[in-house]
């Protein structure tokens, strides 16, 4: 199986922020969610892939090609959906399409029309009057109408109400029926990632905390809840971070098997959501 995206040791530093040694891979035909708190570096990573931001070190390959030396060839096959897509607000969708389409050899008018109808988008309404949900759908329609094999989206569901978010996720699931297509999207809305991703890459303070399949995350992590008296130097070793309260503690472990051996039945094991994982990793980072 080929890899749609390969990132190795990507580094970029700004005045008050640094991306360091970011590495992960997205196999073709799958969907990866980049999660992390705001400012963790998700957008910087995405912009680096698209060469909008100049990386300082590392290697990025898309479709097996270098993202800088083969930039144009790659971008022909990428559909990019922006965080703030509402530019040229005075145009309507029909005119915007007329502006964008000539730049793509593989522009498919039929696909675009289908998508616009499917999403119920008005062609003649000025873009500045579009709701956020409609803008997102328009961006996706434009991004999917030139036979792109790789869809990259930066925070596609932010600012959308829950109903529209579900529609968006359903659209993504539809896209994934084609096993040639891959999707990379960043979000800080963990539930969206849990709903739809095959792979989850968690970014925190410019570093990759983990890159795992959803199953690995679900089956490996767990919340451990028990009485405070159970905590000591030994038992804490199995836990990523602990939140102690008046009536007991709540902790995260990334190795349920070991935790079960240590604590046995004296604690309660609960499923850890991606949000829990983020919360406890943050706790750990603060303590370090």
């Amino acid at each position: 199986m080929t890899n749609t995206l390969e990132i190795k040791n990507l580094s970029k530093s700004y005045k008050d922020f640094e991306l360091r040694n970011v590495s992960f891979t997205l196999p073709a035909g799958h969907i990866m969610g980049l999660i992390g708190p705001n400012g963790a570096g998700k957008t910087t990573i995405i912009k680096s892939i698209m060469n909008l931001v100049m990386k300082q070190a590392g290697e990025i390959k898309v479709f097996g090609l270098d993202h800088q030396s083969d930039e144009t060839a790659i971008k022909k096959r990428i559909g990019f959906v922006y965080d703030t897509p509402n530019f040229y607000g005075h145009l309507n969708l029909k005119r915007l399409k007329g502006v964008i389409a000539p730049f793509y050899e593989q522009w498919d008018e039929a696909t675009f029309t289908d998508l616009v109808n499917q999403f119920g988008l008005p062609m003649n309404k000025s873009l500045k009057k579009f709701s956020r949900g409609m803008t997102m759908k328009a961006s996706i329609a434009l991004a999917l109408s030139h036979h792109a094999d790789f869809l990259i989206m930066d925070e596609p569901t932010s600012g959308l109400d829950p109903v529209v978010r579900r529609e968006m996720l359903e659209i993504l699931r539809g896209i994934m029926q084609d096993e040639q297509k891959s999707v990379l999207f960043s979000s800080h809305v963990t539930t969206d990632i849990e709903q739809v991703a095959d792979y989850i890459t968690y970014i925190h303070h410019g570093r990759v905390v983990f890159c795992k399949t959803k199953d690995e995350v679900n089956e490996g992590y767990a919340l451990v809840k028990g009485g405070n008296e159970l905590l000591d130097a030994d038992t804490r070793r199995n836990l990523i971070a602990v939140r102690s309260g008046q009536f007991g503690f709540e902790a995260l472990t990334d190795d349920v098997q070991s935790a079960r051996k240590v604590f046995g039945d004296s604690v309660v094991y609960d499923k850890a959501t991606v949000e829990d994982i983020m919360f406890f990793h943050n706790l750990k980072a603060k303590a370090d």
Partner: protein
Amino acid sequence: MWKLFIKDIRVGREYLALMLSLLAAISFGFSRDIVPDVEMYVLVVILSSLITSKLFLVMEETSQAERFFASMPITRTQLVLSKYLSSFLYMMIALLVHLVVIHLCATTELQEKAAFLFRPGLWIITPVVLLLSDAFSYPFYFRFGFVKGAFFYGFTLITLMILTVFIIRFYVPQDFAQQMIQWVSGLPPWLVIAGFIAIIAMMLGSSMLISINTYKRQDL
């Protein structure tokens, strides 16, 4: 690159139409002798053409569209060169509108009073001069964006102009200009023209090179 110029027209066609109508109105007004001052008119033509050439630059900046185009299969070099092309073409269109209107609508009195306006030479030299004087502003736009860039460029230009005046006042002999003109008119015409073109090419070329190198390293 032509695609990018056409894109600029597609996106801004209403604004362009509005601008051109305004220019036509100005020239029409002058042709009917409403504004009697010829120098004023020439200045207005020059300024309005310059402003028109910057129209789409402003539009792109305010709409944050450049990020979007950078994510399409277009190289940064193409983006840079297309801006030069678009500016030049926009400027030519503006000048053309002025030219056409003034020629069509000028009263005979005006034609007598301001004969030099109707000499083709003027309308050919003007765009070239404008282009050159403006060429070095582009690296500033690519580095700082349009608004900040215009500000820095203006500042640099004024400083340079003051320096030049200063140098001419104190270090250049009085009859230097006359000597230069005499020397140039002594040269064979083809050499003058070739030299002229070479200078233009060098100035434009270096401006473009600087812009391309600046933009290629720019984080968007």
